[in-house]
């Protein structure tokens, strides 16, 4: 007898089997212990900043799918960073932020101040299942620089459903930061000493690097100058045992002292000044609104082939300062042998300028204004590769090398007079080199 109407259960059985064999939550290697990732990153910008950053990430398996996470980062930064001040057709002299010395900038050059700083940060996290379908993650972090201190807490709930093929993530975070610039917080829109206004300090004329101090000093006198709250909702969907798609939305709001105390904006002579048009009159400390809220939409797709993995992600960012940005990233992990893999990756980023961004101004600045190029329009790309060599089942050493190039509008249409002769957004080139080891014990 032929049963003509036997229904197909293939799809339902395949889904159920997929959930059974999904190794997302099931520890295949139920070894309690420490999984560590120790690395050192060298980041070097051409003619600007150098950073050496050792990091240690450790994850302690407490059993029953419960984990303790720890992350330690130390940065040592030094070099020269743009101040936002405009170049001039003559050599310029600026005071250091502390007001104790001054430095000069050659004609036509972008003003940059020399600095050095150190930063240390410690993050702790606790990750625990509440029941078979719910995880709770709690975290706290503390970080300090010579002139900045940050404290934060965060919490997330992860909810699995649909046979564990779907995960909903809800997160909340709060940071309280203290800003303690050398020489104190300048009054926004006040004239920077030595830039054409009456000088308030003498200076010794030499080039002095700022930044003696340690990572703890900004905690003395800690006050919450800046509060940042964030919320995230995300969905991760397993499409097959080897493919997943992720979509996150987050909203963040910062309030308080959001100005960069070291950035300036230069008032230049207008077109009516003839040959002097575009040359600096004076530079003023920048001023930003005391609130900033931003949104990000993030999507990611990961697909595993036989042994390789393709990942693609896209992020859209928009805020109430009128900055919109797009980030796209693509990586492919290629297994060359049992022990060696290569992961080439490419990243592209593009943003519009904040509505109060000006490369310079012809008026005495009275309202929010910044010439910080990080708030300007620019785009950048990163090309890199990570190579790893496996040392047994859970250990590997890896090397990551990447090249970064950032470009903006070097000759904006609204440049005034002599400013048209200068490169107002010099190209930034940087190289990342990171060497690390993943080790389990």
């Amino acid at each position, binding site marked *: 007898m032929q049963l003509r109407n036997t229904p*197909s259960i293939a799809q339902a059985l395949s889904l159920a089997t997929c959930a059974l064999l999904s190794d997302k939550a099931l520890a295949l290697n139920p070894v309690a212990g420490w999984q560590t990732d120790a690395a050192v990153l060298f980041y070097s910008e051409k003619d600007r900043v150098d950073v050496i950053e050792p990091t240690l990430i450790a994850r302690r398996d407490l059993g029953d799918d419960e984990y303790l996470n720890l992350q330690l980062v130390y940065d040592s930064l030094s070099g020269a960073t743009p101040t936002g001040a405009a170049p001039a057709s003559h050599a310029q002299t600026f005071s250091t932020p502390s007001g104790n010395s001054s430095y000069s900038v050659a004609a036509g050059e972008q003003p940059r101040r020399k600095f050095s700083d150190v930063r240390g940060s410690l993050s702790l996290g606790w990750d625990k299942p509440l*029941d078979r379908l719910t995880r709770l993650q709690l975290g706290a972090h503390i970080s300090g620089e010579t002139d900045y201190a940050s404290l934060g807490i965060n919490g997330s709930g992860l909810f699995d459903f649909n046979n564990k093929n779907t995960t909903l993530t809800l997160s909340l975070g709060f940071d309280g930061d203290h800003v303690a610039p050398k020489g104190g917080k300048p009054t926004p829109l006040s004239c920077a000493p030595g830039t054409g206004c009456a000088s308030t300090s003498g200076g010794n004329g030499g080039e002095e690097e700022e930044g003696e101090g340690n990572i703890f000093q900004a905690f003395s006198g800690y006050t919450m100058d800046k509060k940042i709250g964030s919320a995230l909702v995300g969905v991760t969907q397993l499409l097959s045992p080897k493919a997943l798609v992720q979509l996150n939305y987050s909203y963040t709001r910062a309030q308080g002292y959001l100005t960069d105390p070291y950035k300036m904006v230069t008032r230049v002579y207008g077109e009516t000044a003839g040959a002097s048009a575009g040359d600096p009159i004076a530079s003023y400390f920048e001023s930003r609104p005391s609130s900033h809220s931003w949104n990000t939409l993030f999507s990611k797709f990961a697909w595993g082939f036989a042994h390789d993995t393709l990942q693609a992600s896209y992020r859209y960012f928009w805020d109430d300062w009128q900055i919109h940005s797009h980030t796209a990233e693509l990586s492919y992990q290629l297994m060359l042998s049992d022990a060696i893999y290569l992961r080439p990756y490419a990243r592209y980023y593009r943003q519009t300028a904040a509505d109060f961004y000006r490369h310079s101004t012809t008026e005495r600045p009275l309202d929010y204004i910044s010439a910080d190029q990080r708030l300007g329009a620019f785009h950048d790309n990163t090309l890199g590769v990570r190579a790893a060599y496996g040392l047994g089942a859970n250990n590997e050493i890896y090397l990551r090398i990447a090249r970064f190039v950032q470009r903006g509008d070097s000759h904006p249409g609204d440049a005034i007079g002599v400013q048209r002769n200068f490169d107002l957004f010099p190209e930034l080139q940087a190289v990342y080199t990171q060497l690390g080891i993943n080790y389990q014990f």
Partner: protein
Amino acid sequence: MCELTFEQRQDFWAGLFEAMACPCEVLVDAADRDLIQRLARIACDEARRIEHKFSRYRPDNIIHTINNSHGRPVRVDEETARLLDYAAECHRLSAGKFDITSGVLRAAWRFDGSDRLPTPQQVSELLTRVGWDKVQWHTPVIQLQPGMEIDLGGIGKEYAVDRIAQLLRAATRHSFVVNLGGDLYVSGRRADGNTWIIGIDDPAATGEKSIGEISIAQGGVATSGDARRFLLRDGVRYGHILDPRNGWPVPDAPRSVTVIAPTCTEAGMYSTFAMLEGAGARAFLDAQGVTYWCV
């Protein structure tokens, strides 16, 4: 402790061991003895782990705790919960024919080739203790009625094959075969582009006669059926596949069904479901669109 032996066969290595009361092997497409030693060790450890954890014959595991809970609720771990979720789904998909509580019927049925059938009364008494729908399963807590038992034997071996395959895939990129007593998984084509060739046993002469060969690039293979386990009375052959809904053997079940599916676990379910369909086995398999051999 796993006892492993190794054989070089033509141009690949085999690692052999015993687990789950059957001969097991891992084949790897590499002329590397260290690799096969490592992979066979992983496979054997995982097979033993799953056997210890889910065997109904051990007095020290979660199955024993559940089966001796006397009606009390038992909280289970993540992996057990996944298997119970899976068993519940298979019960639903088979309209109640696949049931992990049907093991108590073994008390009445002994398939030893004799003519000793149980009485209908014996069977109906046992049936009061059979039925997944009598079980309270609210992840991760299971509550059986007193006298009921569960047995994951119908899933365990195929599940172990797929778990081992996952571990081996993480440990090597060479093509391999995991074979636990005939239920197996093939990870992909061999380096020379050829497929692995799998022999299908004649159910009447297991391990001695082959009735066919499967050429398979990737996927799971599982077989249900044992032609030597039956009862014979008044010229009627009672196979050992019991219908948990009435407690009697499924009439006209095939002697043996072998199925190829993306995973060994799915292959095992298809072959088990097909046996439970009795005379409808082929129609059921045709409707699923899977490759099978039905004897």
